[in-house]
C-alpha cells in the first residue's frame, strides 16, 4: 500500500479500527519512507526497529478504544523520551539518555501511539530555520536547499514529507506555526498551560508550549485532544475543561467576528502575503463570519520584548548544562575552566548569543531598563488582546512575513532571522492559542500560511475557524519527492 503515508491521521485511525490496515503495515510504510528520506535530515535519532516491534505487539493484542491505536509518530527531539537519546539538537546533550518520559509524549503512548524517532530542530529550539542544530540543516520537502523553518523544522519536514502522520513540536515564539507555514502543514500553539511542560527541555519557561503539527486541521484537533492534559508536575499547567477537539470540530462559524489587526500590515511585507491575507478575509466572509478591523497598538514592541524575555529565561534555564552531572564535558584544569570549555564547545553560536543577551538584560544595573520594562510591555501586549477580544472572537493574520528562504540566506543576519517571528511572538507573550494553516503559494510555488489567534482556552474555536477555512481554501501541497 504505497499510499499509506499520504493518508491523514484520521483515516489511518479509521483504517486500523476497521482492520483494513495493521499497525505493522502502517509503521513499516513510514519507516521505509523515512529510510528513503535521509537526505531531508529530519531525524536526529531513529527508533525504527523498536517501532516495528511495538507495532507487531499492538497488532497481537489491539486496543481500538485508543485514540491513536498503533499509530507511529516521530517527535521533536526536545521531548524527553525514556531510554531514547534526547539531545535538544545540541552537542551538550549529545549523549543524554533520559530515564523519564515527558507528559506530552506519555499521553501519546498511553493512547496507543508508537515512537518512530526523534526529530531534528534548532539547538534548544533557538532558531527560525533549523540551521542552528548541531546535527545539521533540515531540508524542506517543498524544494531543495530550502529551510523548513524552525525551531520545529524537523517536525514540519517530517509531516510535510510524510515521514510521520503527525508530530508534536514546541512553540516559544512561533516554532510550530512558522515551520508549518513554510512546509504547507497545520500547526497549533495551544494556550499557555494547556500542554504540560514536564519533561520538555526548557527554552523560555513562560513562553514554551508544546503543540500538534499535522497535514490537516482534523488531525491537528485529534492530536491536541491527546496531548493536552492538566499535569500537577508542571506548576504552570492549568486545570480547565478541555474539549474533545476532534469530536466537537465544526465548520459552522456563522456570525463569528474575526478581527483584522492593522498593525500587522508591516513595512516591506511582500505583496503576495497581503493578497493571501485578503483571500483569507474573503474565505472568512464566505463562511458567514464577520470581519472587524481592530487595533493591537503595541504590536511593534512585541519582537524586542520577546528578545529580552526569552533570552533572559534561557540564560538561566541553560545554566544546568555545565558538564558536572550529565551530557558533554570538556576537561579543564579547574572548575571554572571546565565550565568555560564545556559551554563554549557544547553550545552553538546562536545559543551562546542568546545566553549572553539574557545574562546582560538580567544583570544588575540593566535589569530595570530591559527585563523589567519588557515585562511591563508584555502586560500591555496582553491587554491589547484583551481589549480586542471585547470586539471579536478571533484574529486573522499572516503566519509569517515571507515564504521559506534558502538555507544559508539569513544565517549570518540574526535580525533578519528574528523578524521571521514578527507575527507569531505576540501570541506567546500573551499566552494565547493560535493555529497556522496553509492558505496558498507564492510565485515560487512555496506555501504560505495564515494564522488564527484565539482567546485563552479557545482552542476549539480556532480549530473550527481553521476547519471551515481549510475547506474553502482547498490547499494542495506541492511535494514531488525531490529528495528520493
Amino acid at each position, binding site marked *: 500500500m504505497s499510499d499509506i503515508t499520504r493518508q491523514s491521521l484520521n483515516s489511518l485511525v479509521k483504517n486500523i479500527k476497521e482492520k483494513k490496515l495493521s499497525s505493522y503495515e502502517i509503521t513499516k510504510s513510514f519507516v521505509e519512507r523515512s529510510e528513503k528520506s535521509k537526505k531531508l535530515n529530519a531525524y536526529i535519532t531513529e527508533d525504527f526497529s523498536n517501532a516495528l516491534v511495538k507495532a507487531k505487539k499492538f497488532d497481537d493484542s489491539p486496543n481500538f478504544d485508543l485514540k491513536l491505536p498503533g499509530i507511529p509518530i516521530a517527535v521533536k527531539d526536545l521531548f*524527553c523520551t525514556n531510554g531514547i537519546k*534526547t539531545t*535538544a539538537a545540541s552537542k551538550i*546533550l549529545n549523549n*543524554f539518555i*533520559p*530515564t*523519564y518520559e*515527558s507528559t506530552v509524549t506519555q499521553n501519546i503512548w498511553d493512547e496507543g501511539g508508537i515512537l518512530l524517532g526523534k526529530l531534528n530542530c534548532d539547538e534548544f529550539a533557538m532558531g527560525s530555520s533549523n540551521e542552528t542544530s548541531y546535527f545539521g540543516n533540515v531540508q524542506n520537502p517543498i524544494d531543495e536547499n530550502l529551510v523548513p523553518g524552525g525551531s520545529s523544522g524537523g517536525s514540519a519536514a517530517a509531516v510535510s514529507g510524510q515521514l510521520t502522520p503527525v508530530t508534536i513540536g514546541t512553540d516559544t515564539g512561533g516554532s510550530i506555526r512558522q515551520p508549518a507555514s513554510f512546509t504547507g502543514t497545520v500547526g497549533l500553539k495551544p494556550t499557555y498551560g494547556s500542554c504540560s*511542560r*514536564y*519533561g*520538555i*527541555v*526548557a527554552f*523560555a*519557561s*513562560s513562553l514554551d508550549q508544546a503543540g500538534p503539527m499535522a497535514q490537516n486541521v482534523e488531525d491537528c484537533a485529534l492530536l491536541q485532544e491527546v496531548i493536552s492534559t492538566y499535569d*500537577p*508536575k*508542571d*506548576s*504552570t499547567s492549568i486545570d480547565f475543561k478541555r474539549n474533545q477537539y476532534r469530536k466537537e470540530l465544526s465548520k459552522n462559524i456563522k456570525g463569528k467576528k474575526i478581527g483584522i489587526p492593522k498593525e500587522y500590515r508591516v513595512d516591506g511585507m511582500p505583496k503576495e502575503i497581503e493578497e493571501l491575507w485578503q483571500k483569507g478575509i474573503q474565505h472568512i466572509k464566505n463562511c458567514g463570519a464577520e470581519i472587524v478591523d481592530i487595533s493591537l497598538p503595541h504590536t511593534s514592541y512585541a519582537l524586542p520584548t520577546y528578545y529580552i524575555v526569552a533570552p*533572559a*529565561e534561557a*540564560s*538561566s534555564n*541553560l*545554566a*544546568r548544562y*555545565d558538564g*558536572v*552531572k*550529565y551530557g558533554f564535558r570538556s576537561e579543564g584544569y579547574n*572548575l571554572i575552566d571546565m*565550565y568555560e570549555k564545556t559551554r563554549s564547545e557544547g553550545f552553538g553560536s546562536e545559543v551562546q548569543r542568546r545566553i549572553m543577551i539574557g*545574562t546582560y538584560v*538580567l*544583570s*544588575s544595573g540593566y*535589569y530595570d531598563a530591559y*527585563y523589567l520594562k519588557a515585562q511591563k510591555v508584555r502586560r500591555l501586549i496582553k491587554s491589547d488582546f484583551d481589549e480586542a477580544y471585547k470586539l471579536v472572537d478571533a484574529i486573522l493574520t499572516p503566519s509569517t512575513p515571507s515564504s521559506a528562504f534558502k538555507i544559508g540566506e539569513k544565517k549570518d543576519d540574526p535580525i533578519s532571522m528574528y523578524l521571521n517571528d514578527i507575527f507569531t511572538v505576540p501570541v506567546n507573550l500573551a499566552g494565547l492559542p493560535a493555529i497556522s494553516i496553509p492558505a496558498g503559494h507564492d510565485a515560487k510555488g512555496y506555501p504560505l500560511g495564515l494564522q488564527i489567534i484565539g482567546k485563552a482556552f479557545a482552542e476549539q474555536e480556532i480549530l473550527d475557524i481553521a476547519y471551515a477555512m481549510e475547506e474553502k481554501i482547498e490547499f494542495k501541497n506541492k511535494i514531488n519527492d525531490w529528495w528520493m
Partner: protein
Amino acid sequence: MDVVSKDQSEYLIIRGDKVYEVVIGLEVHAQVTSNSKLFSTSSTKFGAEPNTQVSLVDAAFPGMLPVINEFCVKQAIKTGIGLKAQINKRSVFDRKNYFYADLPQGYQISQFKDPIVGEGKVILDMPDGHKEVGIERLHLEQDAGKSIHDMDPESTFVDLNRSGVALMEIVSKPDLRSPDEVNAYIKKLRSIMRYLGTCDGNMQEGSLRADVNVSVRLKGIKEFGTRCEIKNVNSIKFMQMAINYEANRQVDLIEEGKTIDQETRLFDTKKNETRSMRSKEDAHDYRYFPDPDLLPLEVSDEFIEALKAEIPELPDEKKKRFMDEFKISPYEATILVSDIDVAKYFEEVVAKMGKNKDMKLTVNWITGELFAVLNEKNLEISQSPISAKNLAKLINLIKNGTISGKIAKSIFEHMMDGDLDPQMIVEEKGLKQESDPKALETLIDKIINENREKAIEYKQGKEKLFGFFVGQVMKNSGGKANPQMVNEILKKKLQE
C-alpha cells in the same frame, strides 16, 4: 583586647578615650522540619549515604520542574506567626543565578523582593531585662548540595542529598550589640522554632547556620559603620568568637586611620580569625528574576487562620503562665521554658505531684540534680534516665518528711538504674526517715550517756560540740533521723 563589660548587656571596645559599640545583624538559615524537599518528593533525612536522596528535580535534569511542597509553606508561615511577624499573602519565588558544582540548576530558587514573611520581633530575656530584636523578613529557599574537597587530592566530590532541602532564611535587623545577645537571640529563635516544630535547630547537623553582619561605630553615633558579612558560621561559640575578632579588627583599622571595606569574610575556626573571601567589587551578580516555572505563591486568610489555630503556647507566653500559675521567679521560668521538652517535663512532674506541691523544691531538683546528670551523661531531657513520674514521687517523699534531702540524693542515684520507683527504694533499703520522737529521744539519750564528758563541756559553753552530737545521732541512725527533730530534741536534752 580591651573589652569592657560593665554588665552583661554592654559590650564595648575601648581604645584610649574612644568607646566603640558593635552592631550585629544575623541572617539565620534554618532547615525546615519536613519529610520531603521544598520542590521535590525526595527525603530530607540526615546522614544517608551520599546521593541516595536525590530526585531528577534535585539534580536538575532537563525538563524537570519544581512543584512547591505545601507543608514547607505551612512551616514557614507558622514560624512567621511565632515571630509575631507580618504574613504576606502573596510571595514570589525568584532565581538566584550562580555557577557552582553543588548547585545543579545553576540557580537557587529563593525569594527576593516578595518574601513569605515580613517584619516581626523576638524578645530576648537578658539578665537586666527584656530586649526586643526586630525581624526584617523570613523567606523560603532551597539549600545547595555539598562539595567534599578532602576525600581525594585531585577531585571534588558532590553530594546532592541536601540539594533542594527547604531553608528559612530569617534576617534580623541590626539590633544586636554583643556576643551575649547573639547567643540569647539564636537560642530564643531555636526555642521558638522547636516549640513550633518547624526547625529542629540542630547545629551539629547544619540545621541552623548563620551569616553574621558586623560593624562598629563610636558609642552615641547614630550612623552605622561599614559592615562585613561573615559567612556560614555553624555554632554559637564560633559566632561569638568571630564577632569578637571581627569587631576588634574593624576598630583597629579605624584607629589606624584606615577604612573598612564592605566585604564577605570567612571565619577560620582553627586560627580564630576572619579573613576576606570576596570584596564588594567581586560580589556575585545573582541576576535575580521571578522563577517562570513557579506561579506567585498565594495564601488565603483562612489558610493563615487555620495555621494560627495550630500554634502551641510559645516560650514567652509559657514563661508568663509559669510565673503566674506556679509562682516561680522570672529567672527560673526562663530556664524552664527555654526548651520545650524541659517545659513539658516540668509540667509533667508538677501534674504528678498531686495537691501538696513544693514548687521551689521541684525547680531546684530539675535545674539542679537532674540537669547535672543530663549534662554529665550528655543526654537530652527527652532521654532522661528518670521519668517525670518518679521524680515527682521523690520530691513528694521529701516534702512529706518521709526522707531527708540528703537521703533523697542517694535515692536519686539509685533511681537512675532503670528509672526505679523511689518509694520502692525507700522500702527495700529501709531508708525511711526516723521521725518518731520517742525513738529519737531514746537514741539521743544513749548518745549523751556515751559522751557524758562532752555533754558537760557543752553545758559549760563549748557550743561547737553541738555539731558533734548531731553527727553522732545521724551516724547511729544510718542517716535516717529527721534532722530537724534531732536538732530540737538534742537542744532540749543537752540543757537538762
